């Protein structure tokens, strides 16, 4: 009887584990192996040892893509969290048509980011300049996407537009865990408005804040679709995200080996960021 149970569990686990190893672990190992070669994606190749990694740290284009990706991730995360907290507080207060508003505010999240970015591409290229022309804002008369200094803002807006939906809904579920009598008790002690938020509401929803931080940073570091539809990495390679660079130069640019090294470094960066965030947020939660 006991053996039957053990055997069944093994018969479930082994094939599924094999599938996982086949399409996750093996390609991961192969990626690491390619990163020590000068493979172009076809033909023969030689071992080059650590040369790809050495080149990686002196390659200006790779450096720029890391700078852009991190700038985008950090700024977007801040913008998204501030706005979605604000929206969640509004959506959780006493308002009319609550479920309509909640449904509407979540809508951007379910739409495909590629198509959303195409729509915004048109908005930034034609509508915003026309609007600026009408009101007379000189700086916005040309598309922000065609200027290397401002193109990242366009990417940021599109990423935020979709991510706010997700974060808002998570903050709402956090706010719903705060019992009404906490506010009533706090109100007696004179905690209202900003004070109430700072000392009562926010500390109680810190776990939800951590979830949102982790979700945001990780998603934005891996940004791809929006770049594909908005800028294709341009202008002047100013909006090349790490994923986009790996895809573009690795798959079709003959840099299979070199971009594999880039991907390995990117993987390590993601692991470090995720682990650091988890450590940091679990410490914060312990303090409460």
């Amino acid at each position, binding site marked *: 009887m006991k053996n039957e149970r053990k055997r069944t569990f093994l018969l479930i686990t082994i094939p599924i584990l094999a599938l996982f190893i086949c399409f996750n672990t093996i390609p991961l190992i192969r990626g690491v192996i390619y990163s020590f070669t000068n493979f172009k994606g076809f033909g023969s190749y030689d071992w080059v040892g650590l040369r790809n990694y050495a080149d990686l740290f002196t390659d200006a284009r790779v450096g720029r893509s890391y700078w852009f990706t991190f700038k985008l991730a950090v700024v977007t995360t801040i913008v998204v969290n501030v706005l979605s907290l*604000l929206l969640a507080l509004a959506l959780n207060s006493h308002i009319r048509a609550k479920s309509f508003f909640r449904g509407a505010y979540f809508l951007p999240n379910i739409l495909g980011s590629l*198509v959303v970015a195409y729509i915004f591409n048109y908005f930034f290229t034609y509508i915003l300049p026309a609007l600026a022309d009408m009101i007379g804002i000189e700086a916005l008369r040309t598309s922000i996407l065609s200027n290397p200094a401002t193109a990242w803002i366009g990417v940021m807006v599109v990423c935020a537009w979709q991510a706010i939906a997700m974060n808002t809904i998570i903050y709402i579920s956090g706010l719903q865990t705060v019992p009404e009598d906490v506010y009533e008790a706090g109100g007696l002690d004179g905690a209202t408005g900003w004070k109430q938020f700072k000392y009562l509401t926010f500390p109680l929803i810190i776990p*939800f804040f951590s979830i949102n931080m982790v*979700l945001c940073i990780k998603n934005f570091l891996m940004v791809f679709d929006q770049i594909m539809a908005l800028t294709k990495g341009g202008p002047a390679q100013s909006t090349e995200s790490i994923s986009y660079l790996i895809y573009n130069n690795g798959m079709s640019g003959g840099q299979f080996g070199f971009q594999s090294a880039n991907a390995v470094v990117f993987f390590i960066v993601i692991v470090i960021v995720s682990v650091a965030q988890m450590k940091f947020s679990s410490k914060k939660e312990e303090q409460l």
Partner: protein
Amino acid sequence: MIEKKTNISAMTVLILGLATIALPLYLTVVIAFKQPSEMTNSISGILSLPKTWSLNNFKEAMEITDFWHSLRNSLLITGLSVVLSITVHSLMGYALGRNKAKSKFYSFVYLFIVSGMFVPFAILMMPLAKQTAELGLANWFGVIILYVVFYMPMNVLLYSGYLVNIPMALEEAAKVDGTSTWRTYWKIIFPIMKPMHATVAVLTALAVWNDVMTPLVIMAGSGENTLPLAQLNFQSQFGTNYNLAFASYLLSLIPILIFYVICQKQILNGVVNGAVK
């Protein structure tokens, strides 16, 4: 409880915020229906309603992007990925969840799979493109297999977390009756996990339906498209005919919008459950 007044400032913020969500969608609809001759460079020209509500743009966009074919592929890939994810991941979640506390092997496998969450697609992309081509899987079927693998860490985590709430006593009772573990799973455990199936279905469906990168890297050479891939591949053919392009965007958004209107509650619950767990 005292009846509270409507919060006016919150209402104002929300209505203003709603405009930023509605504007891009409104734009999509009006531009999709207009003719190129109606497009002027002024704001009023861009925002005005189309003169006639003709469906010609949609007809043409459908032909250019081979809409029905892409839609069929997207539905097929999403549907099968969801069904396979629920079956495979719930089984794996069960096997690992029930054994990881007392067995070193199972707890290692559990950690091994769950840590797959940290692996970005960027590092798998190039080797997988090679590997799927070698195995003859550079097609929609290969894409489905990859989704089952990619979403396994998250879903196994969710299922085995949910399993903690299901008492062992249920299984033990069945064991006394002489029912096999396999049958017990399908008869008792699988139905009980229904709320988690809904969460997994929603998360997997949304992620697969909107994914661009996997089909782009794996299926690009197969001549087949998913809906997002069709938008990407036919972008150059629309040229400057934005009306056709927007008709095509709108067409690709309609299926998920319908799904959202029908299952809004399940989607919201699923997304929150998935994130908070």
